[in-house]
């Protein structure tokens, strides 16, 4: 079987298009690369959706934490504490079994026992908590002079937030936020290793890499392939978010622009 045929059969296997049965023996390199690459669809889906949706909740959380009334501040603090203080792996397990228990009583929770919604919800809350903490730190380090200048120009309330506070917060938070995004994408590999079942063997990249490693008992082929895909993904994330960083900093004089550190640091 030629490699093109394999790609046609298994290229979209992880979302249920193409050959139904996974290869069982005599695995070729092409099959491994194709299936693991196909699994990356899930990683990208989880990462992109959780990151985009989590961005808004993170902003709200950061604002909530700076709010004066305790009724706004406390829930935000507790949310961040809950999701940053416990391991994602345990969160997945807990959420899965909680949804499983709720499903029996309310039909509404039906989709949440499958990975596409349930795991996504956990990842969304998780990344919102971590980025909320980053944004909170950035909010607190906005130069006081900037805000005073805004007030001197007569900007108040929503207008001040939209034109001064929010862009400055993003600019200051962005390098750490890129870091968070990278490790969120890495965290998506946990989904199918925790309770969430891979329905009809539609799993993510690590699911297929593990499948091959278990079948061939040879970890030296599938895991480096997975590593290659993730390095590519990491570079894409850095590229896209780096471009956003340049846009956020475009009004600053050349020498004050922060050179983006291209060395992600595990800060979760």
């Amino acid at each position, binding site marked *: 079987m030629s490699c093109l045929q394999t790609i046609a059969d298994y290229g979209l296997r992880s979302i249920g298009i193409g050959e139904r049965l996974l290869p069982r023996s005599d695995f070729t390199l092409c099959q491994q690369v194709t299936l693991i690459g196909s699994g990356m669809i899930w990683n990208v889906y989880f990462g992109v959706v959780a990151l985009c949706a989590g961005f808004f909740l993170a902003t709200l959380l950061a604002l909530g934490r700076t709010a004066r009334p305790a009724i706004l501040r406390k829930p935000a603090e507790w949310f961040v504490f809950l999701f940053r203080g416990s*391991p994602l792996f345990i969160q997945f397990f807990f959420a899965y079994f909680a949804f499983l228990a709720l499903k029996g009583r309310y039909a509404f929770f039906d989709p949440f026992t499958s990975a596409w919604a349930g795991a996504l919800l956990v990842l969304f809350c998780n990344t919102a908590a971590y980025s909320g903490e980053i944004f909170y730190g950035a909010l607190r380090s906005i130069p006081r002079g900037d805000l005073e200048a805004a007030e001197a120009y007569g900007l108040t309330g929503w207008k001040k937030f939209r034109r001064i506070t929010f862009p400055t917060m993003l600019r200051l938070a962005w390098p750490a936020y890129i870091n968070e995004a990278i490790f969120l994408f890495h*965290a998506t590999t946990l989904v199918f290793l925790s309770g969430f079942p891979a329905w009809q063997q539609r799993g993510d990249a690590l699911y297929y890499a593990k499948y091959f490693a278990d*079948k061939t008992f040879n970890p030296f082929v599938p*895991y480096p392939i997975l590593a290659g895909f993730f390095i590519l993904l990491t570079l894409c994330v850095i590229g896209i978010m780096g471009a956003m960083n340049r846009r956020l900093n475009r009004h600053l004089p050349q020498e004050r622009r922060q050179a983006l550190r291209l060395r*992600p*640091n595990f800060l979760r």
Partner: protein
Amino acid sequence: MFACTDPASLTGLHWLACYLTTGKHVAFYASFGTVLALLAITAPLALAFGFGGAIAARSRIAPLAWFGRFYIAIVRGVPDIAFFLFFVIALDQGIEWLRHKVKCPDWDMPVRQGSDFVVCAQAKLPLGTDPQWMHEIYGFALAVLTFAIVFGAFSANVLYGAMRAVPRAQMETAEAYGMTRRQAFRRILVPQMWVYALPGLSNLWMVLIKATPLLFLLGVEDIVYWARELGGSKTPNFTDYPHPDWRVWYFLALLVFYLIFTKVSEAVLDRLMRRLTHGQAVSGATMP
């Protein structure tokens, strides 16, 4: 004391007290010890690996420096879970392969036969004849080594940065006093770098705590294993304490355990940071 002789007749709190002290539950509580033991062994080991990696990355010998930089860089581009799954098999096979080469030099079949990894019986580790506890210890040791390699890379990154954060003038002064490179490293750089490394290392400690449930993936009977095992619904045929699916409660207990653990760690590390930066001209309070 409670009498747990006839569980079927017990009710309420009495039943719960008996239920929570069965042999399997005691094993569950003991597995919290496994997690703490893993942390206690892994943290210093990972720090040692990290120190080695940072020194290698700073080395003036090019291949060693490349190796150090590669070690630091690779773990950050690839999910740590992939490393965990990889190293556990790779280390196992690597060790068995080495023993195979030494113990059975006149073995003529290839080690990899299709989907099988075959070494001679004497090279197996642990030996097929060894008792069960040897297998468990070996599995745990592999897990510790895997954690140390992965977290060593993270801490190498932190220590490498901390070594570069020590003011250049300090090293220049050391050179002016006639210290050799090695002396300056030992007497000036290493004692001063810790305060720069501490924020990163305390973050790493938190990450390490939150990575301990991954022991489950490495095949160790840890708290996640027992929570799944004990929480699943039990029918009266197999146990004296039948109950429906309680896994959600068991994982809630684990969640609370980790929340308390990270909270306490955070408080301790904060105090340590304040103590270390006392009187020092670094802005320790504003670190992540």
